[in-house]
């Protein structure tokens, strides 16, 4: 196997690899700006300098030349090399800043040059705290600047497009953003203009940077030059807690991180998942913070004399159980949803199955042609495959409408689906029935339902979803509800503010916690009222029962989902078919 020596340590490698990528893969450190593993390599920031050399091979003796100590003679490249663009070769010797004074000097000088025209406005810059330029200047940079003249001024606060703002003075011209639009999203909307110290990236005159993936450039910009118009100045990085989750705004289910501060979702960023989204996500998925923060149903609501009043959980439970007891099980229509999780759909179907209504239905929300062949699917709901795999009856909109309006049913139980908003039935049609709505946000369906039960969103509970590729992934609660607590739930993440904030300071309040519970938990409480043997203590228990009882989910566990970044259920199926 080929060998390479990095700072006097021997490593083995296989196949072609760039030196920088190899160094990173082995957990070593080398500073860099312009390199990105998913993009082409322009080697323009000159930050990843190393000394590189190769052993001298004597063709006549067919062996490596040795010095007087019996060590291989190494011929170094005359100048520092950029590790990002340098192919590792057998026997190569690399010296990084750890062993080479020259490299340390090179890194320092590169930074001094990069910073010459940089505004150094970290205190008001959104990127501060997660800024490679800031971090590397602290670690490898010069102590001060020798440049005493006026800096070059460039355009600031340019609205490049609806979601991205440019501060050209902060830009270090790494071209990551341009390469992203050229190579990944393929809109080719950005270019570097002007020349020399006037360089900066922008769109052609009169055109907007309205690429549906535009905000990814904000993530990969190694400085604060590109910022998100939505998140700008909303929160400092170190105040937020970061929680792994998944995108629920379409069927692709990109892996994401949810960033919260004081239990409000401040922003959503993509999380690396080579099976689904690599480092990217669509802009639309980042808007989901609104679903989590705004217009939430908090505390149950019950219709009394045609007026919706907030009610206690006890009252809501009693109203629901009395209604259920007053009719026959086959007079209940159970509506699941591709917007709700695997666990909640399963619990719903199982609960009413035990009660005597075996049938549960759902209507997928797929609009042909609304997606693309990248990260936006035609399927607008995150869990259509999950519902299919659970065996929930799939109906189209018209069929579901016919069921809801059918005289056979006296009670409609709706999980999450906004049947009125999706124009499956009209508000009047739904209002003419007794309906119970288990939902997260206020909408046209909750407005006319007789009982409204607030349930948790993907940002508030442990649940899994199966995406259009048949890959199951799960969420971890990012926001507390009134009934969950980060300090007690060891899976929830705790940022600085969560650790040290108190209710008596200005930054932490209780007001962002929603009064809601997971749908399965509501059903457990309802079962208690109705004396049904239906009991779960956690979403994990629900999931374990699904795994035990449903072929599609066999062998899957939360642990596997976590460590393998999701599990491909469809493929597992295929393998079994092949065996048979």
């Amino acid at each position: 196997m080929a060998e390479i020596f990095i700072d006097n340590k021997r490593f083995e490698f296989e196949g072609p690899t760039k030196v920088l990528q190899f160094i990173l893969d082995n957990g070593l450190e080398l500073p860099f700006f312009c390199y990105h593993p998913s993009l082409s390599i322009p080697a323009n920031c000159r930050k990843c300098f190393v000394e590189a050399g190769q052993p001298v091979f004597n063709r006549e003796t067919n062996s490596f030349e040795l010095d007087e100590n019996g060590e291989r003679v190494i011929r170094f490249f005359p100048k520092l090399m950029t590790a990002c663009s340098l192919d590792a070769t057998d026997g190569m010797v690399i010296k990084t800043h750890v062993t080479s004074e020259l490299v340390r000097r090179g890194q320092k000088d590169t930074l001094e040059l990069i910073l010459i025209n940089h505004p150094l406005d970290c205190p008001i810059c959104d990127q501060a705290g997660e800024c490679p330029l800031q971090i590397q200047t602290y670690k490898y940079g010069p102590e001060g600047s020798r440049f005493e003249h006026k800096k070059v001024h460039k355009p600031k606060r340019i609205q490049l497009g609806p979601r991205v703002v440019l501060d050209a003075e902060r830009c270090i011209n790494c071209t990551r953003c341009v390469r992203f639009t050229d190579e990944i999203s393929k809109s080719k909307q950005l270019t570097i203009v002007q020349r020399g110290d006037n360089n900066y990236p922008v769109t052609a005159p009169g055109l907007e940077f309205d690429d549906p993936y535009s905000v990814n450039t904000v993530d990969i910009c190694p400085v604060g030059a590109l910022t998100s118009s939505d998140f700008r100045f909303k929160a400092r990085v170190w105040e937020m807690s970061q929680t792994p989750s998944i995108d629920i705004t379409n069927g692709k289910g990109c892996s994401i991180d949810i960033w919260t501060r004081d239990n409000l979702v401040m922003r959503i960023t993509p999380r690396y998942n080579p099976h689904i989204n690599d480092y990217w996500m669509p802009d639309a998925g980042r808007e989901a913070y609104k679903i989590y923060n705004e217009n939430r149903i908090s505390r149950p609501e019950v219709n009394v004399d045609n007026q919706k009043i907030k009610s206690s959980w006890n009252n809501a439970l009693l109203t629901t159980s009395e209604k259920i007891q007053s009719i026959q099980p086959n007079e209940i229509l159970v509506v699941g949803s591709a917007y709700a999780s695997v666990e909640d759909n399963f619990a719903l179907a199982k609960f009413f199955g035990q009660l005597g209504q075996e049938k549960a239905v759902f209507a997928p929300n797929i609009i042909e042609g609304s997606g693309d062949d990248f990260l936006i699917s035609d399927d607008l709901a995150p869990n259509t495959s999950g519902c299919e795999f659970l065996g929930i009856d799939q109906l189209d909109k018209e069929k579901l409408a016919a069921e809801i309006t059918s005289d056979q049913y006296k009670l409609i139980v709706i999980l999450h689906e906004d049947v009125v908003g999706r124009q499956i039935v009209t508000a009047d049609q739904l209002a003419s029935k007794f309906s119970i709505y288990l939902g997260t946000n206020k909408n046209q369906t909750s407005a006319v339902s007789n009982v409204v039960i607030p349930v948790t969103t993907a940002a508030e509970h442990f649940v899994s979803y199966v995406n259009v590729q048949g890959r199951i992934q799960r969420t971890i609660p990012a926001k507390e509800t009134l009934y969950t607590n980060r300090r007690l739930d060891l899976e929830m993440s705790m940022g600085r503010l969560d650790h040290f904030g108190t209710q008596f300071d200005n930054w932490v309040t209780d007001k962002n916690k929603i009064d809601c519970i997971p749908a399965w938990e509501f059903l457990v409480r309802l079962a208690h009222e109705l004396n049904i043997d239906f009991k779960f203590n956690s979403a994990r228990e629900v999931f374990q029962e699904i795994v035990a009882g449903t072929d599609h989910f066999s062998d899957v566990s939360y642990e596997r989902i976590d460590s393998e970044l999701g599990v491909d259920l469809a493929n597992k199926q295929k393998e079994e078919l092949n065996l048979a």
Partner: protein
Amino acid sequence: MQNYEFTKEELAKIDKIIAKYPNPQPAVMPVLWMAQEKFGHVEPEVQQLVAKTLDLTPAHVYGVASFYTQYYKEKKGKYVLDVCTSFSCQACGAYDTLHELEEKLGIKAGETTEDGMFSIQSVECLGACGYAPMMQITNDVYVNHLTSEKLDKVIEGLKQDKLPEFEPIPLVQNREPAEEK
């Protein structure tokens, strides 16, 4: 807004230019030249025409056009005076020359006189460092070793539509030895 278009003959010529290269990107520069010769400038609409003709994005063409001061991204005066302010010329007093020219014409670099006769640009090295300070007129003749008198003469000449003569530079070995001061 004016509608910019290439004629059939021009398109045929462009096809020939494209055929010289493995992909259309390198054709951007010659086609921008053609467009500038035809329309007198390469304003954004013209850039878009070039992009459309070459099947590239407007952003790409804009990037190229903005790199070179020789492409006029807006309508310019009849004569564009490109004063080099790069290193060698700067060391020989190019900024004094530039400011003097600005005063003489009553406009700043980047502006055009009201009568549409002159524009001034401050540009990067034109490869004539040996004759610094120097300027180029409308992407054409170079005027070398600029002095105040020379500027006056050139401006007067241009007002009568007379471009200055090309100044042959004597070979080093044939030059008069510099006068001792």
